[in-house]
């Protein structure tokens, strides 16, 4: 077994174990902290894929913003320790079966595909890739329209989030 494979297995084990912790912890704050661990593990996987830019973006966006927002929301909605309420609904067994089935079917259906055990071709993965990505995102021959749509979506989400979460006077009377 090569060293790089061992690193992958450690990263994958980190991802899977902490992901299982995320969905099973009673205490939501613990679940969110394990989510941070999972996201970090995914960043390690990205590094192994030589997608360094995405590994760093993963940490900035997911850990720096999304996970923090989630933890704050958990603290604002006070029922955090969850010790009094059963964390799972009555779909527990069905959901577990479906989750296992989803993973199993995905792996099974992919295993017939000839490219399944492909090895990575040698390729440029350094700064050039990030430059190319930037140029493609903002050139009309490339992906300008999706970029604009994505920014509109972000703006809409920003405004919607402010509008929804903003307490207005009439609601507080209820």
């Amino acid at each position, binding site marked *: 077994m*090569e060293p*790089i494979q061992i690193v992958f297995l450690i990263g994958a084990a980190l*991802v899977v174990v902490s*992901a*299982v912790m*995320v*969905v099973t912890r009673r205490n*939501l704050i613990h*679940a969110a902290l394990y*989510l941070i661990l*999972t996201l970090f593990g*995914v960043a390690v996987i990205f590094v*192994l*894929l*030589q*997608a360094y830019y*995405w590994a760093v*973006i*993963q940490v900035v*966006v*997911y850990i720096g913003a*999304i996970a923090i*927002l*989630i933890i704050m*929301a958990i603290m604002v*909605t006070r*029922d955090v320790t969850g010790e009094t*309420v059963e*964390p*799972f*609904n009555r*779909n*527990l067994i069905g*959901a*577990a079966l*479906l*989750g296992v089935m*989803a*993973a199993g079917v*995905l*792996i099974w259906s992919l295993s017939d595909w000839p*490219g*399944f*055990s492909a*090895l*990575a071709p040698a*390729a*440029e993965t350094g700064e050039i*890739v990030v430059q190319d*990505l930037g140029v*493609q*995102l903002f050139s009309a021959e490339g992906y300008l329209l*999706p970029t604009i749509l*994505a920014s509109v*979506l972000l703006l809409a*989400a920003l405004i919607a*989030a402010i509008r929804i*979460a903003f*307490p207005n006077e009439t609601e507080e009377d*209820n």
Partner: protein
Amino acid sequence: MIPLSWYLILAAILFGVGLFGVLARKNVIAILLGIELMLNAVNINLLAFWRYLTPEDVTGQIFTVMVFVVAAAEVAVGLALVISVWRRRATAYADELDLLKW
């Protein structure tokens, strides 16, 4: 060298775990955590396919950009909804939000 299959299997397992979380948890925020896991599984797949099949083409990374954008937007709006619901109904449990049920 790591074969492509390892990444795909990891992503499939992560997706399954996230799906379980979405379907089985009561708390709305826990459901959001499950969705984040599923989106991360998708990202692993996209970047693995980019690296192994089309490393000279940026399309896989463009899709990753979109997934990141959608994840950020989804979390912002989702948490705003959770907080708004908490303010009106004082609950964060999905099965207690049954006003439209009959």
